[in-house]
């Protein structure tokens, strides 16, 4: 996964992609890999471009950890595609990760805009 901003490539924090995937699935419901990638790109304002070589291993990892489950379905162009959905554990994980990220963002925000928060 890479983050493009004005042609620059920036590293993204560890674990960000997991949250993006889980959150997208929470918002959209069951989705295949291509749909997930597209949605993440759109949501990030096309600053994140997902390589399938990164996306699919991440999906498999989340499935192995029990946060998402998958099953075969049919895509919009009538091809067999694997659809991913959140599990109950995944829903709880979204909540936990979201809270943790908000906390972290808020804490970093204090450093970046000290006057506004003091």
């Amino acid at each position, binding site marked *: 996964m890479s983050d493009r901003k004005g042609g620059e490539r920036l590293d993204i924090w560890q674990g960000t992609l997991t949250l993006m995937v889980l959150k997208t699935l929470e918002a959209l419901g069951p989705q295949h890999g*291509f749909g997930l990638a597209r949605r993440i790109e759109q949501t990030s304002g096309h600053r994140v471009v997902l390589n*399938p*070589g990164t996306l699919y291993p991440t999906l498999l990892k989340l499935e192995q950890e029990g946060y998402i489950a998958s099953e075969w379905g049919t895509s919009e162009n009538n091809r067999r595609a694997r659809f991913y959905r959140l599990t109950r554990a995944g829903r709880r994980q979204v909540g936990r990760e979201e809270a943790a990220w908000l906390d972290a963002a808020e804490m970093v925000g204090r450093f970046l805009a000290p006057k506004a928060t003091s």
Partner: protein
Amino acid sequence: MRGVRAWLLRLAGLVGAGRSDAEIREEVETHRSLLAAEYEQAGMLAEEARRRAAADLGSLSAISAAYQDRRGVPVIETTLRHFRMAARSLQRSSVASVSTVLVLGLGIGAATAVLAVFQAIAWGDLTVPSAGDVVRLSQRFDGVVDRRVQGQVDRFSYPEFEAYRVATRTLAGVAAVKHDRMVWRRDGEERPVRAAKVTGDYFRVLPVRPDIGRLLAPDDARNPVAVISHRLWTRAFGAEPDVTGRPIDLDGVPYTVIGVAPGSFSGTELEATDVWLPLEVAHAAQGRDAMLADRNLSWLQVLARVESGAPMPQLKAEAALIAGQLEREYPGRRTTIRVSRATRLDDALRGKALAVGALASLAIGILFLVCGSNAASVLMARGTTRRREIAVRVALGAAPRHVVWLLLAEMSLIGLASAGVGLVVCFATLRTFASVLPIGDIMAGIRPDAGVFGLTLATASVVTFACGLAPGRQLLRVDCLPDLKGEESFVGRRLPALRLRQGLIALQVCVSVVLLVAVALLGRGIGQIWNASLGYATLGLFVIQPDANWDAATGSRPRDRGDFSWQLATVLASDSRVRAVTLVTLAPFAGTGHSRAAPGPDVPVAAVHFNDVDARYFETLDVPLVAGRSFLPGEADAVVVNSALARRFWGEDRSALDRLLYVPSRGTETMRPLRVVGVSPTLQTRDVGIPDEPTYYTLLTPRASGTSFVVLRAREGAPVRQLASDAAQGIAPGQSISVASLDDRLRASTGELRVALGVLAFLGALAVLVAAVGIHGLIAFTISARFREIGVCRTLGAAPTQVLRLILGWTMTGVTLGTIGAVILTVAASTLLGGELQGLLNGLSPLDPLSFLFAVSVLGLSVALATYLPARRALGIAPVAALRSE
């Protein structure tokens, strides 16, 4: 927890569970088609959209590979892949692989078995609960030592043992034991048994639980009772449950069986004990009470149990204190007490066992060298033909580390297989040892445990990697182009490889010859015993000793055995079938008398040996004196010395005559002078192959000794046992006697040598087998690798004999070099260790030509066979087939 679940799923993925490769490919393919459809919707032509989507995604196989990596555990998958490749590669050269595995397995198995045996014998704990707390006490005397010895000098007298037992505060129990051979008479049949005469605390020091009845206790000191071993119970009593209360007649004394020791306990010495008796009652019954009272006689082994937690220094300090009190009686003598962990061997025997063990370890080392070099040469031979395969791999982009991993995987497979073969060989070897060696009972109890298995595996790995990676290094130095062209099998590089192989063959031949020479030497050395190297002929020489007949019911005293022996000697001497009869205190190989002597009144004394003999001793042994004469009747102030003593004190044999020799008066510390009337040659009456120490002989007064032996030289064919038995019945009806030929005694005294010979012969045979298998494998492999070359030779008109000569030439250089190396090694060993080796070989020279001839012929024959069998195949090669072959 989630992490664990993920790892478990990944591990399951290794064996094919979860997403399949096809599903992964399909999913990635769907992704690409959806992307292409999106481009098409944006207005691109279908073809262009597909091309663009493919370009965006990059290599599908790379994406699939990343996906698959997450499914399993890449390291394990790669390793498994390497192992699969290694297995296929080994299968392709199955001759080389199998012979390597067999050779390594044989070596590893045999070596592990020998090590397990020596570990168990020399250092193995006793088979009793908390064996680590059992110690063995032994003592060393320095300074002025005048001590009687039965067995080894480091043992204790009964009063000394009692002193330790009573005075100790750090030992929870102290017990003395004397091992003896006894004769068990049952229904008119005689059967030898190994007896342990023990003091009351023996089973407190060694707290085993009886299988039946009870064990000996301190109260049994005066009861004629016996505990029998589990083995004796099952073999001789048919495992009858009501064995307690049954009588058992040992050396003419009836004992009552009170219990059966557990099967796991076979005593405290190398040879399994059959029966345990109370020491005091057994000696009183044999009329040997005097031994119990003798303060200055080494005869008892002392075992003790340490209070748990008692520190060793405290134990040693206490032992030294008691020893200090005891040695006050003997001015000038210093006693050192040694406290060591109790094993089946005491220190002196362990020394002997270690000597044998060192020899065996050397042999094992040599065997490993043979196996290792053998395996290395086969692997190297295989390696030279694999250069092409490796070159192909490197050319296709395999990184050197992958090639190394592949080689490591091959070595691991060979190592594992060798360890498997090794374990089988190890079990088989132990079983063979148990049935062949004289200590079979102990051997039968040795089982390769986890430690031995670990040792086998570790040794297999080390040896395999050591001999596998050397050729592996050579393989990595691949120069692709010539290797791909297959040029390596021709003249350019072949010569150094061939020379190396010949060097390895030479090494194997060298060590095999050395081992075979050692086997032949030891065998001939034992054979020497039956020659006249003792200084007297053993043929027709018998040793007779009266048994103690003691009636436990009436408690009557034994007969005067000295008187009986004297009468027996007189009766036997009058028989025409007997050439000569003599009475001695110590018959040959029955023990040693330690004493001291000086050539003058004010000269420092020296430690020497002594024996009391009667006037006919030298005549009976058939030994002419070197100078002077034997004793005259009643000549109590005369002494005969052996040549060693004469030379030590007076320079030469003749100058000893009529000199005065000062020796201790019996029972006192004062020295009395005796006149030297004769000088005997230095005989061998103590150890085979080792001349006696300086020894003096004094005249045995008739009827004086209760423990004298009758030594008899019979004419050929005389029924000595019957004669002696009839004579005994004539003197004292009911009196039984023990009759043993000197050859029997000698056979018993060569036990360790025979163990060594057994081990060496086994290793020697194995070395020859390994060398033969290795050479066979090497030649077979070389022939198959050079099939084409031989075919060309045959096409160009080479006669079969020429081809045979070519093949024989590959091995013969190695064989010749190896034999020369072996001769050099043996000469060097005999120069460095000449004295010790000659003692071990009973006087035979280590450079004995017959032994060399034996070794070279056995090896030559094996190598010739190992070369001829594959060579025969080469002769059958049809030239056209060879030229066509790839």
